[in-house]
C-alpha cells in the first residue's frame, strides 16, 4: 500500500477486515454516507452495504449494548465512538458487560468487539473532543487497551484487534490522523500487546504511546543535538503493558520518563512508574518522572498548547532525570 496517512491506514484495515470475514460489521454514528466525522470509514458503506456498515441512532450505550448482542450472535462488531468524550454513556455496558461477560460465562463466551475511539487533544476542538480516557479502561479487567502511533501500526494493530477474541479499546490519536507512513499489509506484525523500542539511546528512556510518540521522537532528536542520547519506547498497548520491553530499556539507561496526554494523577504513568520501580529499583539512577496533562478538565482550545506535554516539557523531564 506504500505511503499513506494514519486515518487511511485505519480505513484500509477496516476494509480488509470486512473483506476477509463476513462476520465483521461496523457500527457507529455517521459512519455510513458521511464516512465518519474524520472520514475514517469513507466508502465502506457504499462497498459493503448498510448491514455491514451500520449507521446507528445517537446512543452510545445502545451501540455498545447491541454490539455485545451481535457478538453473542457470532458477529465481530467494530464500533466507532465519535469522540473520546462521548464514550461515557457506554461506560456501563463496556465495564459491567463487555469486560465481564467472558469471565461470567466461565470463559465460554468470546466477545470480539473492538471499540475505536479517536482520542487526545491538539486539534483546537471544543469541550469533550480532546480527552484521553485510557486509564479508565486499563484499570478494568477484561478489556485490552491499545493505541497506535503511526500508520503501519494503525493498520496491523487494528487487524489484530478485530481478529482477536477479546474486547479491545482501540484509541486512535486523532491529531496524528494525517501523519503519513509506510504501510505494508503483508509485513509480519509484532504482537498486539508488545511495546517497541523505536529509537535506541543510552542516557534515558522516554516512553510514550499514541499521539505523544512523535513528540517524544522529536524531543530525542533535539536532545541528541545537545549531546544526550535518549531511547524512545512506543508502548502501543496500555493493557496489557509489555513490561519486559520497558524494563529491559530502563535497565540499559537507568532513567525513565513517561509521557502521555491524559492527566498524570492516576494515569498510565503511575502504573508504569510503580511497576518499573518495583522491578528495577536498584537500576534506577533517578525516580521515574511523569509528563502529562494536569488535574483539570481539558481546557479551552486556545490554551491547549500549554496543557499538552510538548517537546520542551519532555526535555525538561529528561534533564531532571539526568540531573538527579
Amino acid at each position, binding site marked *: 500500500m506504500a505511503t499513506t496517512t494514519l486515518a487511511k491506514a485505519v480505513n484500509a484495515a477496516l476494509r480488509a477486515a470486512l473483506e476477509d470475514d463476513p462476520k465483521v460489521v461496523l457500527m457507529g454514528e455517521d459512519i455510513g454516507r458521511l464516512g465518519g466525522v474524520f472520514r475514517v470509514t469513507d466508502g465502506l458503506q457504499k462497498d459493503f452495504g448498510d*448491514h455491514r456498515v451500520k449507521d446507528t441512532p445517537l446512543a452510545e450505550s445502545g451501540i455498545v449494548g*447491541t454490539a455485545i448482542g451481535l457478538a453473542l450472535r457470532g458477529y465481530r462488531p467494530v464500533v466507532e465512538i465519535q469522540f473520546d468524550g462521548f464514550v461515557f454513556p457506554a461506560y456501563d*455496558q463496556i465495564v459491567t*458487560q463487555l469486560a465481564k461477560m467472558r469471565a461470567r*460465562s466461565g470463559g465460554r463466551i468470546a466477545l470480539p468487539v473492538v471499540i475505536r475511539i479517536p482520542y487526545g487533544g491538539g486539534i483546537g476542538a471544543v469541550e469533550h473532543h480532546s480527552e484521553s480516557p485510557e486509564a479508565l479502561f486499563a484499570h478494568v479487567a477484561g478489556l485490552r487497551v491499545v493505541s497506535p502511533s503511526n500508520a503501519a501500526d494503525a493498520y496491523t494493530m487494528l487487524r489484530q484487534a478485530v481478529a482477536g*477474541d477479546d474486547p479491545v479499546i482501540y484509541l486512535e490519536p486523532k491529531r496524528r490522523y494525517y501523519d503519513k507512513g509506510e504501510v505494508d499489509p503483508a509485513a509480519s506484525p509484532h504482537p498486539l500487546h508488545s511495546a517497541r523500542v523505536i529509537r535506541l539511546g543510552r542516557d534515558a528512556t522516554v516512553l510514550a504511546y499514541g499521539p505523544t510518540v512523535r513528540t517524544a521522537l522529536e524531543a530525542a532528536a533535539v536532545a541528541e543535538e545537545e549531546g544526550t542520547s535518549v531511547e524512545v519506547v512506543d508502548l502501543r498497548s496500555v493493557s496489557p503493558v509489555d513490561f519486559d520491553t520497558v524494563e529491559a530499556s530502563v535497565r540499559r539507561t537507568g532513567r525513565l520518563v513517561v509521557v502521555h496526554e491524559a492527566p498524570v494523577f492516576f494515569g498510565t504513568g503511575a502504573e508504569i512508574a510503580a511497576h518499573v520501580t518495583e522491578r528495577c529499583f536498584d537500576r534506577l539512577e533517578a525516580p521515574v518522572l511523569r509528563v502529562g496533562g494536569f488535574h483539570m478538565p481539558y481546557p479551552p482550545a486556545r490554551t491547549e498548547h500549554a496543557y499538552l506535554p510538548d517537546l520542551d516539557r519532555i526535555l525538561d523531564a529528561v534533564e531532571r532525570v539526568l540531573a538527579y
Partner: protein
Amino acid sequence: MVQLLTPHGERVHHPDYDIEPTPGELREMYRRMALTRRVDAEGVTLQRQGELGLWPSSLGQEAAQVGSGLALRADDHVFPSYRDHGVALARQVDPLHIFRLFRGVSHGGWDPAEKNFHLYTLVIGSQVLHATGYAMGVADDDADSAVVVYFGDGATSQGDVSEAFNFAAVYDAPVVFFCQNNQWAISQGVERQSKVPIHRRAAGFGLHGVRVDGNDVLACLAVTRAAVERARQGREATLVEAFTYRMGAHTTSDDPTRYRQSAELTQWARKDPIARLEKYLLNHGWADADFVAGVGEEGDRLAQHIKESVRTMPDPDLTEFFDLTYAGEHRQVTEEREWFKEYEASFVEGS
C-alpha cells in the same frame, strides 16, 4: 388486559389472542409452573440454611415465566434477568446452574448456546440491549428465530431499556420485550417507575404494546406466541407487559414488611396462577388428584436432588479464575496468577 383464564379458573375468550391448548399441553404448563414453585421454595430454604448467598424468589410469577417460555421454539433465544427460574425450567435449563450462581461458586457459568438461554444479568436493564443486538444479528442472518428478553417494571426506568426499544424499532429487530410488572422494584411501587401503564411506552417508539394478565398462563402463552410470530415473520418488535405480582420478598435479604401491606398479598393470592390452572384442569377432568400429587412428588424429588447437589458443590479455587478473563494471554494476569500460585504454595510448604 388480555385474559384467557380467570382467577376462578374459568375460560374466557379474546378476539385477538385465542388459543386452544390440548389437555396434555395444559398439564405440561401446570407441571412446569409447579416445578418452578417447588424449585424456588428450595432456593429460599437453602438460603436460610446458609447454603446460598442469596435467592430471588419467582413466587407468583410462574404463569408469566412458564407461559412465555413455552411459546418459544428451540432456536429462539432467551435473555433472562435474574428471577426467571420459570423461564429456565420452561427451556429445560438445568436448575443447578442457577443455584451455582446464587451459592457463589460461579457468576452463572452455563453455556448459553446449549438451550439458547443466556446468562442471568444483574445490572438492571443491560440485557435488553444485548437481546436487541442479538435480534439484529438474527435479522442480518435472515434467520426466522425470535429473541425474547425478560426484565422488570423497575428496569423500564433505565435509559438502556428505552434505547433498546428504539434500536429494535429502527432496525426492525425480531425481539419480544417481556416485562414482568410484578408491581414492585424492591421497595418501590410501580407508580415510582412510570406514571402510565408500562405497555403504553411501546407506541412512542413504534413497537406493539400489549398488557396481559401475568398470572394467566394461557394468556401469557398466547400473547407471547403472537409476539414471537410478529417478530419472526414481520420483523416487528413487541413490548409485552405481564401484569403480575412478586409474592415473596425481593430477595432473601429483603424485608417487605417494611414497605407493603399484607392486604395486598391476600388480594393477589386470590389470583394465584397455579391454583387457577389447577381448578381449570380439575373442573374439566383433564387432570385428577393423582396427577396433582404426582407433580408434587416430582417437585419434591427435584428439590431433593437440588439440595443434595448444592450441599456438595465444591468451592472453586481462585486459581481457576485468572484465566477466564481473557481469551488470549494478558501479561498482568499471567504475572499475578504465577505470583498467586507461588504464594498459595508457600503456605502449603510452610505448614
